[in-house]
């Protein structure tokens, strides 16, 4: 071999190694993005799953509670006074001490007292123990996110409040535990009381509507296109049309929902039924495409055998072909529903962005759904909401991963190779 050829070969091998490295780098880049994304959200969100609750004996001072107007009394103030007493402090003439104390415990405690007094007015004048979350800022302090080393002017809690919090923790009045409230409350303006139950229920209701519309319609449409439709210009148009619909930006479906469902048919704004219908239209093409490929995979021998023993075409399809294709249909359907679960943009168009402090009342009343809740909380300015956003994302991802895993298991378990 000549030197020139040797040199050329070396160069070619170097190029080969370089090219292979580009591929490796690309994969590593993609996977590190995945790790970064999930890791960052996990880091931001996991602290929400624990919370600090305070348990306080509160003296229901008869002079501060108006028996004639229970709703009108300031129970937060009553709680604050009890907290001050426990700290051995007294109210100053400007009320700053009680204001500081009020900023440490959630207003939920005041509402609890109101509920209990309403149920049993004889409690006034006695001391009762109420338990509830601490305010979001105090929670951040306990979790180490709000640091004492920051200059007092730059943090939301002053030195005196931090000292109180330390003492409360030491005395055992504040305990840390699993954040049950996050899973049992609906949205709230106070971060420490905001939960995702309302959004979870809303998402479930909406997904139910989507599934009830998109699955039967999509499957039946696919059956017609694949098994019955004649091959002519019309069916070609429908076919191209379905493939293109699958690639239409989701926000366009939102515009459709707004113009047709809401303005035309008068569907309720921001309700699960409207959102479900919009998402059903969006999921329909993917369900059709998945069902068609599942039907295509069923070998013609099945059809011929059924027709051979005298079944009609309809019977062949519904008694033999479709059942054989069912695992594939289910897999495709679950995947497209999982996609619908994470969809946000079209729901903003149909007014699902409203603040819903209660659980959804029904299919036709306003509700929130998980991805929109994420969007709403992300826009909130308080830091505590950002943590909750990440936690809500974790819950959303868990649901989506569960659905995807179900699809994979279905495929593994029932898929038949012909």
């Amino acid at each position, binding site marked *: 071999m000549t030197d020139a050829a040797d040199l050329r070969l070396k160069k070619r091998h170097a190029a*080969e190694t370089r090219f292979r490295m580009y591929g490796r780098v*690309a994969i590593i880049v*993609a996977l590190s993005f995945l790790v970064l994304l999930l890791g960052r959200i996990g880091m931001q969100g996991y602290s929400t799953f624990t919370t600090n609750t305070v348990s306080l004996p509160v003296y229901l001072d008869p002079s501060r509670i108006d028996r004639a107007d229970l709703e009108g009394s300031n129970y937060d103030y009553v709680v604050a006074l009890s907290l001050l007493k426990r700290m051995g402090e007294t109210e100053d003439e400007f009320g700053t001490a009680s204001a500081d104390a009020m900023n440490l415990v959630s207003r939920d405690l005041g509402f609890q007292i109101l509920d209990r007094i309403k149920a049993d007015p004889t409690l006034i004048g006695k001391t009762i123990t109420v338990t509830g979350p601490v305010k979001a800022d105090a929670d951040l302090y306990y979790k180490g996110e709000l640091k004492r080393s920051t200059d007092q002017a730059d943090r939301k809690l002053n030195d005196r409040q931090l000292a109180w919090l330390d003492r409360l923790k030491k005395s055992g009045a504040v305990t840390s535990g699993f954040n049950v409230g996050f899973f049992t409350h609906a949205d709230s303006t106070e971060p420490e009381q905001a939960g995702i139950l309302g959004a979870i229920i809303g998402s479930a209701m909406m997904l139910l509507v989507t599934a009830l519309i998109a699955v039967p319609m999509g499957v039946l449409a696919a059956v017609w296109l694949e098994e019955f439709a004649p091959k002519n210009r019309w069916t070609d148009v429908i076919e191209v049309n379905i493939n*293109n*619909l699958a690639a239409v930006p989701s926000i366009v*479906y939102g*515009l459709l929902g707004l113009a047709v469902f809401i303005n035309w048919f008068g569907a309720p704004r921001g309700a699960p039924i409207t959102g479900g219908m919009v998402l059903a239209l969006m999921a329909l093409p993917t369900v059709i495409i998945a069902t068609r490929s599942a039907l295509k995979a069923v070998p013609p021998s099945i059809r011929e055998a059924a027709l051979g023993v005298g079944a009609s075409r309809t019977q062949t399809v519904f008694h033999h072909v479709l059942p054989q294709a069912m695992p594939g249909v289910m897999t495709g359907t679950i995947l497209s529903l999982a996609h619908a679960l994470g969809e946000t943009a079209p729901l903003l168009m149909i007014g699902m962005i409203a603040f819903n402090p209660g659980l959804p009342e029904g299919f036709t009343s306003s509700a929130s759904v998980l991805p929109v809740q994420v969007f709403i909380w992300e826009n909130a300015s308080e830091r505590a909401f950002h943590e909750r956003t990440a936690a809500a994302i974790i819950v959303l991802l868990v649901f989506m991963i569960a659905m995807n895993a179900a699809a994979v298991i279905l495929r593994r378990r029932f898929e038949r190779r012909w």
Partner: protein
Amino acid sequence: MTILIALALLAAFSVSVYMLGRRRAVVLAEGRSASLHSLPGYHGTWVALWAGVPAALIVILFAVFGARLEDAALRAQVPAAVAQLSAERQEVFWSDASSVARGQTPSEISYQGAIGEALAAKAAEARRLSAIGLVSVLALSGVLALCGVLLTYPRLSKDFRARNRVEGWTGILLIACSTLAVLTTVGILGSLIWESLRFFQSVSPADFLFGTSWDPQIAMRSDQVAAKGAFGAVPLFVGTFLIMLIAMTVAAPVGLFSAIYLSEYAGPATRATIKPLLEILAGVPTVVYGFFAALTVGPSFRAFFNWIGAMLVEGPMDPLGQYLMTVQNQMALTAGVVMGIMLIPFVSSLSDDIINAVPQTLRDGSYAMGATKSETVKRVILPAALPGVAGALMLAISRAIGETMIVTMAAGLQAKLTANPLDTVTTVTVQIVTLLTGDQEFDSPKTLAAFGLGLTLFTVTLALNIVALGLVRKYREHYD
């Protein structure tokens, strides 16, 4: 509520009719089921379908359109006192009349004198109309259901081809479901074009498509003093294009190279682990990417550029340093990069399929000539797969243009005509969201502008999709 009860009654009626028809067929068979043309169940189903479906359709149509009909009937006669009011006040009067009729709380406007009487009269009329409508529709559906049974039941006989009839119904159902997909397209096109036409009545299409100033602030009430609002969409198109370009700069090389590595270099084990991991990246909802962009990528980019700026300040590059110090969280680069990350699995899985479709014989031929793997990929596989890869990239571009949440959360709202990736820009989709979220009246050019933007977006993505899908399909057929 009444509607639901009526539908439930109809369902129960159909079930009992089914039993009736089935039993009739069994009786007709006289114990020899082979003497029937169709199985007894088909006889029952056929009768039940005629009993239930037309009646149910009437009830459902009434539920959807009934309120509009009643409203139209109510407004047919305008009381003299109402006719004097302004158009908006008349609207309020009519909605108050129906609210009063339904026992809901009307608006806070107090009606006195002749108008008050008119309101009471119209409320009574509305109540009467809705009662008449409901009763007549229920009666009609009852008659239809009975007629269905009475006309079909006597026709059952041994030779009656009930199965073929039922299969006819099934066929109609299947075709109806397939047309829904077409109706969706018609609905999208119809609503976008209709609302856009209304928009273009107040803003000329040329101003919209070629105007360079976007400022959709418009007076909400007629007595408000405000700028007329500018609807030149070029800054939005430029912003969308800029972000798409950044996204494709990230997604195209990373996605393509991972696809090449996965299909040509990786062993089956590596493939089996990496592909599902990339699919996770594809399954993450876009709102999550938006959150990531807004709270992680944006601030880090800002810190990074501010840091570079701080180093350049007071040096030879002082103006650039000064500029970099002012970079904000919301910039085209943040949205573009995160959108690129979102598109990586999309590009890679599509390209992977396409590269795999290149026949093995081409590879074998190339190897036999002594080419290395990378030479085979570069000189044989990629040229062969080029149309398909181009199609995949076009589909990715169409996704990037239509993507909403990432840009809404990370790109910004200011419509600037700039090509600077560090500047905040806005896109078509962001503006659609901003124009339509929040409570505003639906007739103002401001809200209608969203439909103009939507129509543009739909047209562009549709063109891209048609070309791209055509390319991919032709390419597949080429090697099949």
